[in-house]
C-alpha cells in the first residue's frame, strides 16, 4: 500500500504495480521497458497517476528513433542511393543526412517522417528529382505500381500464351491471356484479362 492519494476518487488505497511495455519504432525495431502503474482498490481506477513513466518512454523512444534513422540511411547506402544524392534531390544542405546518421545532429520530427516516407516509398525521390511536377509524379507512381504488380505474377507456374501493353499518348492498357486449366468453372480456357488500364491520367484497376 502507498500513502499516495488516488486522483480519481481521493482514497488512499493505492497499489503500485510494475508492468512491461513494448515500444516499437518503424525501421528502428522494438524495446521493452518497465513502467509503474497504480491501482486504486476503492474505485478500481488504474494508471500512471503521478506521471512517472513519461520520461522513460520518451528516452527509450528517442533511442529507437536514432536507430531508425541509422537503419534507414544504411539501407539507402546498401541500395546504392548516396546521401548526397538524396540531399541534392530534396534540396537539403549537404551532409545533413550524414550528421543525422552519425548523431552529430538530430532530425526534427518532420525530418524523421520524411526519411521514413522515403524508405517506405523510395520512388518519392524520383518525384523530388522531377521537381514535384504533377504529371511526372503520376507516371513515377504508376511505374512503381506496375513494378510491384509484375513481381506478384509467378511467371514460372502461370502459363501466358500472350501478354502485352498497348499504349498511346493518353492511355495504356496491360493485358494478359491466361491459359487456364479446364477445371476453372465458368471460364473459357483462353481468356484475355485486363489487369489495369491508364486512361487520361486515371488508373483503372480490374479486380
Amino acid at each position, binding site marked *: 500500500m502507498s500513502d499516495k492519494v488516488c486522483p480519481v*476518487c481521493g482514497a488512499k488505497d493505492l497499489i503500485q504495480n510494475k508492468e512491461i511495455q513494448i515500444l516499437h519504432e518503424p525501421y528502428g525495431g522494438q524495446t521493452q521497458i518497465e513502467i509503474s502503474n497504480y491501482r486504486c482498490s476503492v474505485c478500481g481506477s488504474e*494508471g500512471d497517476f503521478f506521471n512517472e513513466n513519461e520520461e522513460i518512454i*520518451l528516452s527509450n523512444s528517442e533511442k529507437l528513433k536514432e536507430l531508425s534513422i541509422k537503419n534507414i540511411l544504411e539501407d539507402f547506402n546498401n541500395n546504392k542511393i548516396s546521401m548526397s544524392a538524396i540531399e541534392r534531390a530534396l534540396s537539403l544542405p549537404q551532409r545533413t543526412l550524414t550528421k543525422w546518421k552519425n548523431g552529430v545532429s538530430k532530425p526534427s520530427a518532420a525530418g524523421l517522417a520524411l526519411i521514413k516516407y522515403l524508405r517506405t516509398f523510395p520512388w518519392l525521390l524520383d518525384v523530388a528529382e522531377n521537381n514535384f511536377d504533377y504529371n511526372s509524379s503520376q507516371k513515377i507512381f504508376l511505374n512503381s505500381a506496375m513494378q510491384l504488380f509484375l513481381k506478384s505474377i509467378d511467371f514460372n507456374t502461370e502459363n501466358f500464351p500472350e501478354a502485352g501493353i498497348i499504349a498511346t499518348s493518353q492511355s495504356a492498357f496491360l493485358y494478359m491471356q491466361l491459359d487456364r486449366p479446364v477445371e476453372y468453372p465458368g471460364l473459357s480456357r483462353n481468356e484475355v484479362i485486363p489487369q489495369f488500364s491508364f486512361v487520361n491520367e486515371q488508373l483503372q484497376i480490374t479486380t
Partner: protein
Amino acid sequence: MPYYKYEEFKYACGNDMDNVIPINSVLKNAKETFNLFTKSNLLSFIYNNGLEDLTFVNTKSWENNPNPNFDIKVDAYEFRSLHKLGYIAFMFNVNTKKWIIKSFHLSDNRNMAMYLALQKAGLIKQEKK
C-alpha cells in the same frame, strides 16, 4: 447539455497538465489507435484542437464512484481526426481538483467515419441542422 465547459477541460490539457490524469486504457488506446505515445502527446493533441467535429454525446454519473453521496458527472463526446471517429469521456473531481480522462478510444458509432469521409469527398450533401 454538457455538465462541464469543454474549454476549461481543454485549457487544463495545455496549461495544467499535472492535474489532468488519463486512467485505465486511455494511454494504451491513445498509443495504439491514435499514434499518441505519451500523456503529454495526448494532452497537447487535445489542447491544440485535435478533437475535430466535437459532438456532445451525453452526461452520466460516474458508475464506479465509491461515494454515492457525492455525485461526479462524466461528459462524453465523439470527435473526428482524419478518417477516425473517436470517443472521449472525462470528469472533474472537485475534492482532488483533478480532471480525469476516463475513456479515449474509437467510437462504437464508427459507421459515421465512412459517412464523414463521403461527405468530405462531396458525395453526400451537408445536412442542415
